[in-house]
């Protein structure tokens, strides 16, 4: 019998010992879970533009979750999105992350750590917009009374494009929330938040330049966009099979004066579509028709005021600049109706089939953003 020969290199020895330590320390309860999901659908207006371009899309992905201990979850995931007509928009996303919850369920204090990295790669047509995102969050919840719980959440997000820099931004957000149980099966959740986003922008010129700006030659400066938020939520059951929530959200920029960003209609993949101030209200219903059949629907209304942006403008003559600074304000109505059916086997496999209809109406002070759209999606998820 040949004796075991250990590697002579110290680095190899260290790696071997570390690997053995990890394996030996793994609990016998460590397990791995897998998930596969696929969905497809049709939309009457993929680009959300006045003309509306129909397209079909499909999405397929898989993820593996590893639980070395009962307080830790590692995730490895990938996903591919495919578009029928605008094929170049198809993209691959890969990512990994972790969640660490050191506190037990019986503890009056809950602590939550999470971290995520995702990278997205487009096809050749949109390769300049490949991007990486980093997310991290630390949350603490505290049960003050049997009927009240407080929470403090800090989150960080970084978006960086591999092919350009003008869309990169980093966001730090802090929110403080309180959940109150009220008599009569009523619940109220209050949340206030503060967000700071470091981002490049163009300074708004003063007259006599007459508010004309060329996004391709104007220098960008780095700055911070700050916003405060307030969001109350009311929820209660309606009967024993229907749940209702009504959520209001109000967000206000604090220092957006003089900030101009690249326009959303200047052939850029827009990193600014979700950056706006304003208010919204939504109503959601969730109901169990049977023990495994979940039906949910909701309607929402948004008032959005975006940062000033450089947009393409009609040129009265050849000497007039092709771009101008525009204010954009939108009013949006959105509706969804979803039905989900769950199937489970005795071996623990859960299969979920889903169907969803989305309907969107958007009105804007800019004609380029007056649009409506309908989408129909189906999907299936298998968890092992």
């Amino acid at each position, binding site marked *: 019998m040949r004796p075991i020969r250990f590697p002579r290199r110290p680095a190899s020895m260290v790696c071997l010992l570390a690997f053995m330590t990890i394996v030996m320390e793994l609990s016998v309860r460590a397990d791995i879970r897998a998930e596969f999901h696929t969905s497809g659908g049709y939309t009457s207006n993929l680009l959300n533009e006045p003309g509306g371009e129909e397209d079909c899309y499909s999405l397929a992905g898989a993820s593996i979750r590893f639980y070395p201990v009962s307080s830790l979850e590692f995730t490895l995931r990938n996903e591919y999105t495919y578009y029928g007509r605008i094929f170049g928009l198809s993209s691959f996303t890969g990512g990994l992350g972790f969640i660490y919850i050191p506190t037990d369920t019986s503890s009056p204090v809950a602590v939550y750590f999470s971290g995520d990295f995702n990278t997205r790669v487009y096809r050749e047509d949109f390769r300049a917009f490949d991007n990486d995102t980093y997310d991290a969050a630390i949350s603490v919840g505290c049960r003050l009374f049997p009927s009240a719980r407080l929470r403090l959440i800090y989150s960080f997000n970084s978006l960086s494009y591999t092919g350009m820099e003008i869309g990169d931004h980093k966001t730090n957000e802090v929110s403080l929330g309180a959940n109150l149980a009220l008599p009569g099966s009523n619940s109220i959740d209050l949340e206030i938040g503060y967000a700071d986003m470091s981002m490049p922008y163009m300074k708004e010129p003063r007259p006599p330049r007459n508010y004309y700006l060329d996004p391709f030659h104007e220098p960008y400066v780095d700055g911070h966009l700050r916003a405060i938020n307030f969001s109350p939520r009311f929820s209660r059951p309606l009967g024993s099979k229907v749940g209702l929530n009504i959520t209001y959200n109000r967000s206000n920029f604090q220092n957006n004066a003089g900030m101009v960003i690249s326009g959303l209609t200047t052939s850029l993949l827009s990193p600014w579509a979700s950056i706006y101030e304003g208010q919204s209200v939504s109503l959601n219903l969730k109901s169990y028709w049977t023990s495994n059949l979940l039906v949910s629907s909701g309607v929402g209304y948004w008032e959005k005021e975006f940062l000033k942006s450089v947009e393409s403008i009609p040129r009265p003559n050849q000497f007039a600049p092709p771009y101008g600074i525009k204010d954009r304000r939108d009013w949006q109505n959105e509706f969804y109706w979803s039905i989900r059916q769950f199937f489970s086997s005795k071996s623990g496999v859960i299969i979920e089939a889903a169907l969803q209809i989305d309907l969107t109406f958007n009105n804007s002070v800019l004609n380029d953003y007056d649009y409506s759209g309908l989408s129909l*999606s189906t999907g299936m998820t298998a968890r092992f």
Partner: protein
Amino acid sequence: MRSYRILPIIMTTALCFSFVQTAVWTAEDQKTGNSYFVDLDGDGFNDNAPDKNNDGIPDMAGPEYLNDGRADFEAEEGIIDFGACLPLSDELLANSTRFNRRRFGARDLLQNRCGYDCDEAFGSGSGIGIGSVRRSGGCEGGVCGP
């Protein structure tokens, strides 16, 4: 611009129908006894409602509750508060199950509504639909976002 003015009417009718139908089936408030109605995830259902098979669906929503499950539910009331209602003796469970219980206890810490991406929370949570697709390469105003 295409017009779908008739569709909101159909959708609203469907929404009202789904609400009315399920409400009529069991038109009574959830009985909470001396316990508190806790809804950290905001779905309108009591988070402390028993879920014996851990499938995320409260037992009272299942058909068994309408038959003989009421006694079990009422028996567990009064001892439940903001702490999780799940059983604590889990020595024999896999780590994934135990982790999911911890995550259930921290369900209000998973996501904040305020912030620059607050509208992402709107939706069914099924992971499908145009909203989820747009978040993985979506479009607005003729261009597409990351």
